[in-house]
């Protein structure tokens, strides 16, 4: 059994379970402001303490995970949903279409991901939806590139030639032969992009470009903790840990999957 796969999977499932649980139960209302109880350290009543408005940090992290996961999920969905077909198309057709698609990708790549996201949210205003679109757009060329590269190597294999000789259409070859052969690679890429999506969401909401208050988000929790670091270090510690652990879990899962799925090992 692959150790990083087990640990990664366990952490990922735990975070997912926490997000699901937050729909039905949190220790406190994550948006309930209780000023007299502000900046309490971890206690039996508030396991992870309270923030500067007296909100329960554990509840905020639980509800915030929903936001992080949703943004990352949809962003990866947009990226994979548009990027993979584009990559497959480019690999299949080659020629000027391949050239054009790849140069277009270069164009998107030329802008750093976060700058692109800031630009999009600056134009269309901050909000969870815009953050999703911004991160999703950057994911498109990532998936397109991986899909194209992997598909190209599959297209040159002999069994494709055989399938062609049997008269299979190009679209059938893609769904029957190319796609199944590159699924491993794409699965690994999805977990990596998912982790990056979580980080990007935290980055955007740290900059005030994510979901507006009162909905809690991990990035904004870090931002708010910044000036309180001497006063209440737990305000920065726990959301920071939540991000680190989640991203670590997803990366371990990705590593594990690659090891397990790679036939060469």
């Amino acid at each position: 059994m692959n150790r990083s796969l087990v640990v990664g999977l366990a952490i990922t499932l735990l975070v997912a379970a926490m997000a699901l649980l937050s729909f039905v139960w949190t220790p406190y209302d994550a948006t309930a402001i209780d000023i007299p109880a502000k900046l309490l350290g971890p206690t039996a009543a508030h396991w992870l303490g309270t923030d500067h408005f007296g909100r329960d940090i554990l509840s905020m992290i639980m509800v915030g995970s929903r936001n992080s996961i949703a943004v990352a999920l949809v962003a990866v969905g947009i990226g994979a949903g548009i990027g993979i077909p584009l990559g497959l198309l480019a690999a299949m057709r080659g020629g000027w279409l391949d050239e054009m698609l790849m140069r277009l990708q270069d164009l998107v790549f030329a802008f750093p991901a976060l700058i692109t996201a800031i630009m999009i949210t600056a134009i269309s205003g901050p909000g969870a939806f815009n953050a999703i679109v911004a991160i999703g757009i950057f994911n498109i060329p990532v998936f397109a590139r991986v899909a194209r590269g992997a598909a190209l190597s599959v297209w040159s294999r002999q069994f494709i030639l055989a399938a062609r000789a049997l008269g299979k259409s190009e679209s059938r070859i893609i769904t029957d032969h190319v796609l199944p052969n590159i699924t491993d690679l794409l699965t690994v890429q999805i977990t990596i992009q998912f982790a990056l999506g979580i980080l990007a969401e935290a980055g955007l909401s740290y900059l005030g470009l994510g979901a507006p208050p009162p909905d809690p988000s991990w990035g904004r929790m870090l931002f708010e903790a910044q000036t309180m670091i001497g006063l209440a270090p737990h305000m920065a510690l726990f959301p920071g840990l939540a991000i680190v652990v989640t991203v670590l879990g997803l990366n371990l899962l990705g590593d594990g999957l690659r090891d397990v799925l790679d036939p060469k090992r």
Partner: protein
Amino acid sequence: MIFRTLGTSARKYALFALTALLLSAMNAFAARSDLTLAMVLEPPHLDPTAGAAAAIDEIVYANIFEGLTRIGPDGAVKPALAASWEVSADEKTYVFHLQQGVRFHDGAAFDADDVKFSLDRARAPESTNAQKGLFTAIDEVEVMDPSTVRVSLKYPSGDFLYNMGWGDAVIVGRTSAAGNKEKPIGTGPFKFQNWAKGSQIVLAGNPDYWGEKPALDRATFRFIPDPAAATAALLAGDVQAFPSFPAPEAVPQFQADPRFEVVIGTTEGETILAENNARPPFDNPKVREAIAHAIDRKAVIDGAMFGFGTPIGSFFPPHHPAYVDLTGERKYDPELARKLLTEAGYPKGFRTTLKLPPPTYARRGGEIVAAQLRAVGIEADIIPVEWAQWLDQVFKGKDYDLTIVAHTEPNDLNIFARDDYYFNYRNPAFKALIAQIEATSDDAKRKALYQRAQGILSDDAPVAFLLQFPKLGIWDAKLQGLWKNYPIQANDLTAVKWTD
């Protein structure tokens, strides 16, 4: 060879250390004469007679530019470029006797013609002065001789000498006025030296100053918009003073540190939840009353300002002699708020928006106010905006439902009498009262009128009054002479000096 090299560099180092020691010993005898201060916002330009931004006055007032009179640290009117003055019996004629031997920083001599030029320029129809109201009482400015000016008023004005002390009423040079935005030329004890946009502005002592020369010969104003960076800059000693510190939560840390002095003062900043009185449902007085009762000022002050600031019940500073405490008139009472909403026809509340500019008090205060409004059924969606957007959309465009902002000008009760102001509040009785205050110079009568005006605003609740903004001054404990309070927007450096 390696040993040789090491030996030389060690000797060099020892020499360097010795020189440094000597230099620092010399420094101990000659008192330090430079200062780096920090401000949150960078000014758009540096002409106080052509802009409303407080950041302009916070750099140039009393340092670069001077007026006929000036406002002191206690808010009292003092002589400045006018050494003395006489007021006629009917209080409609002021004769100012000007200081002698004053020169502008470009070498031009200052005389009565500059005074006439400055006042006429400020009140001209095409003037871009942000506070034209300061000059409305003026009928005519006459030059009697090069050092005497007579100002005739249309009506007696109790505020006239005070108004002439504002940053917007400073005296500018006839030849240099046009360039003041980029290269301000005044008569003050400091000269403008350079401006590294986005970073800092440097002033140098004026060796030809007409009055008592200040102890500092160099002052740098650095701009630090981020509260976390503000704390770090002070702790590291990069800046030695933050006259208006932006992170109230970090204040206790500085209070406990003997290297710093923390001075909590007052400002003229009435902080309010503004409501668009022209837009439903805020055109309904009952809705506005409900909002006033839905807000717990104490929670806002404790949560957003960490306890700094004073609750207000009207648009008037608590340190003013004419202040009446009306916070009890609109008490925090969510039950009553819900009842008023039902009477207004909104038994289930309503949905609206709350636009918040960047300062911490607005963003944090806004979250708390939104939660308090939610508790009585009003769902206010928070929309964070940048300052440029706020000025454009809210202040100029009046496109907003609710917003939070501090109004930092002194003596600004009259904004509620302006028809074109962004509150869209119109009350003829209040307007008449403000006109009456402006034409009254008797202190006791003015006080009574001011109190009536405060009462009207509390009753009408055109906006919800939150708190009087505090001045959180933090500076090096060895520094003396910075203002405790902000009776006017200014960081006057004329009396600032280093001790020991």
